[in-house]
């Protein structure tokens, strides 16, 4: 990458501090059984439009709902068929290939028990594993590791955890200690953040708006010319843009996989990707969302490649705080919603399936007449993975890992 070799000192100094994903270094989670499972959790922050990622092309109300914004098998580009009912976003050929090889499973119309629409609170519920948002500083993945450690099934020489990137995701924070690693490049402020700030400045401070616009124009110039604007102007950082996002996702996820693949490496990790809050010009087929899903697809490919032999013992769970409105809003985007997808990938899965209890898309089928209804509790899926892949006791899952979830039965048969 061109991650600004012209200004090494400033970047190195800024980067040296943080982490982007986190993992818990507990080699051989279930060595007594001769297995060595790995699990990586990727949190998509901002709420992924599940209908834009995996479209119910077989639902008679689908086209009526989204009109010419609906992904379709005869669309441009055409959606990738999964079964007779669902099709995958065309920006995700790697996930499609994995699905065909039975190394990927999609869960649809799912979400956490959270039913409000605040990102922060939604992410808290998603990662804490609690029923409601609130002051909490540990995540379900970390507590799952503690549950494993407490019954002696974890190599006692392990017991450290690790984080990569500037933030340790809440899902892996907790008493099982976390270490950190930072990718070589720092993700600059996203286009979305820049656009929001520009909008704020336009309403509050025209001079700051003009200054920021200048920077955006420079970045656009760099992209249109197929060059890195930073080369022409040493004072500027490389522009953000989907190419940089792709590179960043791939490097971060690929590095996580390299660590997970090592015989003495961590066995569980978590990382977060931002940018999914597509209120304006969502572009599911060929715009903004397609770009992000393509970057995610590249990250999954990088994980598969770098896991090597260990891919067959791996599960990657891609989850998000909630979904988006079923209909397109007034700015060609979608607003905060409820039901969405969870994407599972990895050689340990019994894949090639879409798991859904399809709620339908008619007006009366929608949650509060606006969102895809959630018919599968995401905790059931996560509990199923933790029980059957990492072998966490079901009693621990119902009490310490996902407190208050005794009546949410783990989904059976996801792995093996």
């Amino acid at each position, binding site marked *: 990458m061109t991650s600004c070799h012209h200004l090494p000192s400033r970047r190195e100094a800024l980067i040296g501090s943080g982490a982007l994903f986190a993992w818990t270094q507990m080699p051989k989670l279930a060595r007594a059984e001769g297995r060595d499972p790995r699990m990586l959790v990727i949190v998509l922050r901002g709420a992924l439009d599940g209908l834009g990622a995996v479209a119910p092309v077989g639902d008679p109300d689908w086209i009526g709902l989204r009109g010419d914004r609906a992904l379709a098998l005869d669309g441009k580009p055409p959606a990738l068929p999964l079964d007779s009912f669902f099709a995958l976003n065309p920006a995700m050929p790697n996930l499609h290939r994995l699905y065909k090889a039975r190394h990927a499973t999609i869960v649809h119309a799912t979400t956490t028990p959270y039913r409000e629409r605040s990102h922060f609170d939604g992410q808290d519920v998603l990662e804490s594993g609690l029923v409601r948002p609130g002051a909490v500083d540990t995540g379900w993945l970390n507590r799952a590791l503690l549950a494993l450690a407490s019954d002696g099934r974890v190599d006692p020489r392990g017991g450290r955890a690790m984080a990569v990137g500037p*933030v340790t995701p809440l899902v892996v924070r907790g008493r099982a200690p976390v270490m950190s690693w930072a990718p070589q490049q720092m993700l600059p402020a996203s286009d979305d953040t820049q656009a929001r700030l520009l909008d704020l400045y336009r309403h509050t401070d025209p001079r700051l708006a003009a200054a920021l616009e200048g920077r955006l124009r420079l970045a656009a110039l760099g992209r249109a010319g197929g060059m890195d604007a930073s080369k022409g102007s040493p004072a500027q950082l490389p522009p953000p843009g989907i190419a940089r996002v792709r590179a960043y996702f791939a490097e971060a996820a690929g590095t996580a996989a390299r660590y997970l693949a090592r015989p003495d490496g961590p066995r569980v990790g978590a990382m977060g990707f931002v940018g999914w809050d597509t209120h304006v010009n969502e572009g599911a087929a060929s715009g903004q969302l397609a770009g992000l899903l393509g970057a995610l697809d590249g990250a999954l490919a990088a994980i598969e490649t770098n896991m090597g032999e260990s891919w067959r013992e791996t599960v990657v769970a891609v989850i998000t705080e909630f979904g988006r409105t079923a209909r397109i809003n007034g700015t060609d985007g979608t607003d905060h919603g409820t039901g969405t997808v969870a994407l599972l990938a990895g050689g340990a899965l019994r894949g090639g399936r879409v798991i859904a209890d399809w709620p339908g898309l008619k007006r009366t089928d929608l949650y509060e007449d606006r969102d895809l209804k959630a018919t599968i509790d995401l905790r059931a899926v996560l509990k199923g993975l933790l029980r059957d892949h990492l072998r966490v006791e079901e009693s621990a899952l119902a009490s310490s890992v996902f407190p208050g979830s005794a009546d949410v039965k783990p989904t059976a048969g996801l792995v093996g």
Partner: protein
Amino acid sequence: MGHSAKAEAALALHRFGMGPRLGSIAAIESDPRGALLAELDRPRASEVAAPSLPTSTQAFRTVADANAERQARRILATRAQKGTQRAEGPSMAEGTGQADTEMAARMAAEAVPDPGRQIFMNEAQIRINAALAAEIGFAERLVWFWSNHFCISADKIQSMSGAYERESIRPHVLGRFADMLQAVEGHPAMLLYLDNTASMGPNSVAGINRTRGLNENLAREILELHTLGVRTGYTQDDVTSFANVLTGWTLLPAGDNPEHGGEFIFNRRLHEPGPKKVVGKVYEDTGVEQGRAVLRDLASHPSTATHVATKLVRHFIADEPPPVLIERLARTFRDTAGDLKEVTKVLVSSPEAWALPRGKLKRPSEWVISMVRAAGTPADAARFTAGQASLGEPLWRPPSPKGYADDEATWIDGMGQRLDVANFFAERVASRIDPRFVMETVLGSTVSAETTQAVGRAESRQQALALLFMSAELQRR
């Protein structure tokens, strides 16, 4: 902006302080002006305790000792390498031998660590901590202002840059301008920075013996930047003459003075003999006193009063400083013989200081510190100074003796870099900091409805914090 008590408190913290931190708005909202004045009245308000840090001359000697040791090791390694090569005979290609020798010498030298950077970082940490710990931070802002007015550069004298500020700036920012001027211009760091250590009178003993002469740098910058101000009537003759006055102001070399190396001395051998005329007045040759007398007169010159008043008002209030406010401060400066505490009090007590909207763009260092204060996290010196440097304002390293500029045009194009820094910082602290808590409690809901909405609608805590840190309310004071 409304004029509620909270808004007034926020104005005081942004305009005169280091920005709001948890509890500071509540602490001062009953009487923001009184709180500012009270901070100035605290004993030793502008000083920091740094018992473990070396004085500037100790730092100077430590670095000089390390450099001397490096040199010695380099020579020993070169000798040893050449001895080995002789023993191995002439078969070795000459070029290779040379390269080996140089590498061995360099490795031997680098085995002695450079203490200068560590001293610099320790000094930076103390300065950052002082800015983070202050309830308001008005005195610290004054330290930053005067340190920039009388700037030196760590590029030239890294080890002394922090101690210089502690020794010659901090004790005087609420004292007399004349005392600060004497402390600054006689400080070894300033004498090194503006090349006075090597300046010698053409008719001095050393000047005649070594056929070397005058360096005008220090004299010119004292007149142009530190006291009277540019184009205030002094001439090239005044500069030359003043430079002659200052010959002999130097420091003891470290090599010969293990206990006092680096300290100021007046070296008569370098001093140009005879009376000299500076800005209309003749000064008899009284040795070091000749220079001290010129500085005393410059400090009380009316042009100096106006120059200092203009810079203070531009820094604290507005890029286009209101003339009436400048004149009020200048008059106080003249009437009190340069009592900076009185001048500062007049600034705070003036209605203009509270009536003008918060339109002044914070300099990068001020913005970064207010961001960290709002977040309530500690700051590591290495990371903090790197962030500051990436925004074009590296600590104690201004591009020229003029110091960092104090206007919006200089800094506003750096918004893109600020966004990257804000985004990165937000990413790092998002796991511990609730943006709504910062907005509602730390900032006391003094941000606009638009900012409140943008923060509330952000897609993640990180984005919410980045937007809040970048908002006009945190950028402007």
